[in-house]
């Protein structure tokens, strides 16, 4: 039964935001909710830094002969990739929404290791500052993939700083994952069995497994790259017997599962949004939960699909190709289950649900094009073209970022105690959707027609599609700026929100005020019903109970 309090005045009540004031109470906090906000502001800042590089790239690509030199353009796409992958996408949902909601959703007072949580933010900031130092001192031009021997031996740019920044930042990810795993295992409220956990938790648990198992390998890869850069021992240098493909193996062993670190939390959000705005329990809860784990496990078995044309053996490539097809299955299962949830549900179109619809459609397109790339014969033609770029932007931006925005809007009243303006929010969602598709759909065609990625200049026949893509990017940028403005405004001046404005199921909605107090719950929760028990509520209403 949901407990919707009447419009309560948050000003009068003590919550995690107003319990303490002053910079020390924020910088030395151990409250997972405050740490989530610290992450939110820093991650948003990095998003705009990464976005600035994208602006530079798209401006350059307006004309075939471009604006910048090849060297400068190399730096733009490299920094765009490094910042977006390591300092935005990987931490985004887990460090913000995950940190805020995991304890609330399982009925705990905080994460298992609150001080390690704060430490993880400081480590993230340290890694970010090191990466920004690399930028400010002139940038890196190796691509975010740092392929050797160019990165290890020949590049004249700040590879060491960038690699060090990623190495340091990786520990933030590991600690967050470790914290979530222990929390979810050990701190669930009485009655909160694994089978009653919100799918948001299952998704974050699977993500945490990947973070813990995969990130150490990129850490050691960056260490080896750093040492190689300093000592020139030849570890990855073919001219002295080193193997550059070994670098690619070690790099992608993490970086492929990393994309599942990025998407699983997005899917976790979507599961919550779809069920709430269809007023219906998720279809196939067990399948969605197991699929999250399956994606985490299978995701570690496919990294060789990034090495199809690198000289990897054909037989290993075949195995990786087959496994890459397999990993699509659990993702597809989730899409089917979300759709089936909506079927005969009572669907409404508030902003979070608009983003959820956007996610489902765009992620499906992105995921399907992944299958094209997993097919070796096709990959030979479209690898290293804009087809690949369109593929991963569809899943990452059309998927992940939309889920992130949907989640921010959905839980905004819980986090701030205020409502955002629905009209502006819907408008922005539509602008984002339109801008996104205009930016990236032409890139599928460009890639298919043969335009290579990471090229500063291109043949004139590709100009029309590039202009369309840049036009789309400017619309997308506006779509991202609008929520920045109204969310900031709404935090201070928006209408006060009730405890459960969406009438949603879940401990964070039903048992914690908006915003929650420092230790989350006024009374320790006890769980007695399954997750998403929307029909239970309807039956009570029908029977007049």
């Amino acid at each position, binding site marked *: 039964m949901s407990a919707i309090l009447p419009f309560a005045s948050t000003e009068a009540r003590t919550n995690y935001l107003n319990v303490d004031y002053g910079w020390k109470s924020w910088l030395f906090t151990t409250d997972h909710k405050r740490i989530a906000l610290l992450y939110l502001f820093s991650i948003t800042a990095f998003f705009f830094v990464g976005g600035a590089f994208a602006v530079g790239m798209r401006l350059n690509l307006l004309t075939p002969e471009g604006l910048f030199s090849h060297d400068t353009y190399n730096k733009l796409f490299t920094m765009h990739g490094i910042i977006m992958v390591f300092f935005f996408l990987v931490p985004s949902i887990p460090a913000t929404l995950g940190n805020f909601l995991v304890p609330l959703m399982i009925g705990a007072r905080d994460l298992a290791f609150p001080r390690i949580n704060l430490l993880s933010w400081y480590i993230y900031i340290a890694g970010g500052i090191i990466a920004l130092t690399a930028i400010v001192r002139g940038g890196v031009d190796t691509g975010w993939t740092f392929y050797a021997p160019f990165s290890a031996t020949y590049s004249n740019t700040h590879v060491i700083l960038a690699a060090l920044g990623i190495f340091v930042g990786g520990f933030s990810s590991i600690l967050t994952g470790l914290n979530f795993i222990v929390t979810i*295992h050990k701190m669930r409220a009485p009655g909160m069995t694994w089978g009653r956990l919100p799918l948001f938790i299952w998704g974050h648990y699977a993500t945490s497994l990947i973070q813990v*198992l995969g990130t150490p*390998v990129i850490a050691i890869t960056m260490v080896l790259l750093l040492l190689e850069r300093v000592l020139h021992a030849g570890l990855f240098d073919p001219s002295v017997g080193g193997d550059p*493909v070994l670098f690619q*193996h070690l790099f992608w*062993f993490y970086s492929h599962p990393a994309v599942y670190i990025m998407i699983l939390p997005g899917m976790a959000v979507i599961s919550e949004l779809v069920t709430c705005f269809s007023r219906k329990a998720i279809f196939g809860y067990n399948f969605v939960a197991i699929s999250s784990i399956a994606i985490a496990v299978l995701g*570690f*078995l496919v*990294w*060789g699909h990034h*090495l199809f044309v690198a000289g*990897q*053996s*054909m*037989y*290993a490539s075949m*195995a990786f190709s087959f496994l890459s097809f397999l990993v699509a299955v659990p993702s597809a299962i989730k899409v089917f289950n979300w759709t089936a949830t909506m079927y005969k549900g009572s669907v409404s179109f508030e902003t979070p649900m608009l983003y959820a619809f956007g996610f489902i459609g765009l992620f499906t397109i992105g995921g399907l094009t992944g299958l094209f790339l997993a097919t070796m014969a096709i990959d030979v033609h479209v690898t290293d073209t804009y087809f690949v770029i369109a593929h991963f932007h569809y899943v990452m931006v059309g998927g992940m970022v939309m889920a992130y925005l949907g989640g921010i809007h959905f839980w905004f009243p819980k986090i701030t105690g205020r409502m955002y303006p629905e009209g502006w929010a819907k408008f922005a969602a539509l602008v984002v959707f339109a801008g996104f598709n205009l930016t990236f759909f032409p890139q599928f065609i460009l890639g298919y027609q043969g335009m290579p990625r990471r090229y500063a200049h291109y043949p004139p026949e590709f100009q029309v599609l590039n202009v369309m893509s840049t036009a789309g990017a400017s619309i997308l940028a506006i779509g991202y700026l609008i929520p920045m403005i109204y969310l900031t405004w709404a935090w201070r001046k928006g209408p006060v929100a009730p405890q459960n404005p969406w009438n949603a199921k879940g401990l964070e909605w039903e048992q914690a005020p908006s915003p929650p107090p420092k230790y989350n719950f006024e009374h320790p929760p006890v769980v007695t019903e399954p997750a998403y028990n929307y029909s239970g509520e309807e039956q009570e209403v029908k029977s007049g109970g």
Partner: protein
Amino acid sequence: MNHPVVSVKVYAAVFAALLALTITTVAVSKLELGEFNFIAAMTIAVIKGTLVVMFFMDVRRATSMTKLFVGAGLFWLAILLVFLLSDYLSRGWRPALHWL
């Protein structure tokens, strides 16, 4: 975690076994056994590692969850090594299977 305290004798026995196995592995390495040198050395290392994990780290009496995590860590290491090697070891296969 509230297990009864292990006797010193058990720890001492494990300690003695570890030292004995170390001496053994060094001795065996001096013999000319071809590929078997590697197998012997690795087998002994695995036994030593297992003794440390089971007795010194007390996984022998730990919860199933702990055992699962230990197993998962080893399994993931195996994934890394096996899949990595599968590339290098199968590169030479092409000529033999050119009829495919």
